[in-house]
């Protein structure tokens, strides 16, 4: 039985003769447009004052709920009396509105943190070359 064979040279010639697959004609344009879009997005700088305002707007309801309406009881006073300290957060939320606003703030922050996490996960690290 004669085994079917091809030399390295023949194989290389055949594969090179077959050539490479070509992407669509809009390939370059799509990449360059994407880069331009990203550059425009990065040039829109958010002023520092608006970032501060945003943080205040997000944090102030939480601060309000924590320090004005309710009492934070971390059980510190009971530490000496009880062997295992009980930690409890009593914000003294008396109305549904307060619960909802606290929940809204928590959801906003969780969404913000989760989005950052997902962005980092999606980005494949590029090694140095």
């Amino acid at each position, binding site marked *: *039985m*004669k*085994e*079917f*064979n*091809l030399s*390295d040279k023949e*194989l*290389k010639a*055949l*594969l*090179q*003769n*077959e050539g*490479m*697959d*070509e*992407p*669509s004609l809009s*390939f*370059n344009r*799509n*990449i*360059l447009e*994407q*880069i*331009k879009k*990203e550059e425009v997005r990065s040039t829109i700088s958010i002023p520092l004052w608006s970032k501060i305002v945003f943080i205040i707007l997000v944090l102030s309801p939480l601060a309000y709920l924590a320090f004005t309406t309710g009492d934070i009881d971390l059980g510190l006073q009971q530490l000496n009396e009880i062997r295992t300290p009980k930690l409890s957060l009593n914000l003294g939320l008396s109305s549904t509105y307060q619960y909802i606003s606290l929940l809204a703030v928590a959801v906003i922050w969780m969404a913000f943190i989760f989005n950052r996490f997902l962005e980092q996960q999606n980005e*494949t690290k*590029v*090694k*140095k*070359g």
Partner: protein
Amino acid sequence: MQRENEQYAMELIIAKVKEGDMAAFNVLIDEHKAMAFTLALKLMKNREDAEEVAQDAFLKAYRNIHQFEGNSKFSTWLYTIVYNTALTRLRKKKLQTTDLDFHQEENLASYSESDKEWHRLQKFERSGYIKEALDLLSNEDQIVITLFYLNENSLQEICEITNWELSNVKVRLHRARKRLLKALEQLLDTEVRSLL
């Protein structure tokens, strides 16, 4: 001499890209898009996905061009990004890839008819068979064959692109070559039998 000139020209282009020259980046895309796309297609098995992967890889290369310090060839660095981007995409899509079970094909009766048929085939017909046979291989086999024979990457460059050990690359290449020939032979054998 020509190779040195090409390398110098490439360095100039990359320097311009680092300065944000889009025209220079367009030249880089033109130079490497076919291989980047071919590589992505070998893994994705779908033109749309392959094009997205290749585009994504070029975007990553542009964003991280400052990371390229010229320690390896630009093409090697770029194909590493293409390969990793495709793998990440594949993992997400959990695509089922087909692989031939070559162990079942060990006991093929005769090779001589295939050999004769091969030599009778015209050049363009041979190319068609090569493509078909290549499509029958696993992703890893296609990648290693494409990089080594089609793009003429060295074993060391294949190691960089795929992150495989050198010994692993050698073994894979050897096995992939054997499987390609076997697949080719099987295709030709079927052709011969259909003619008889």
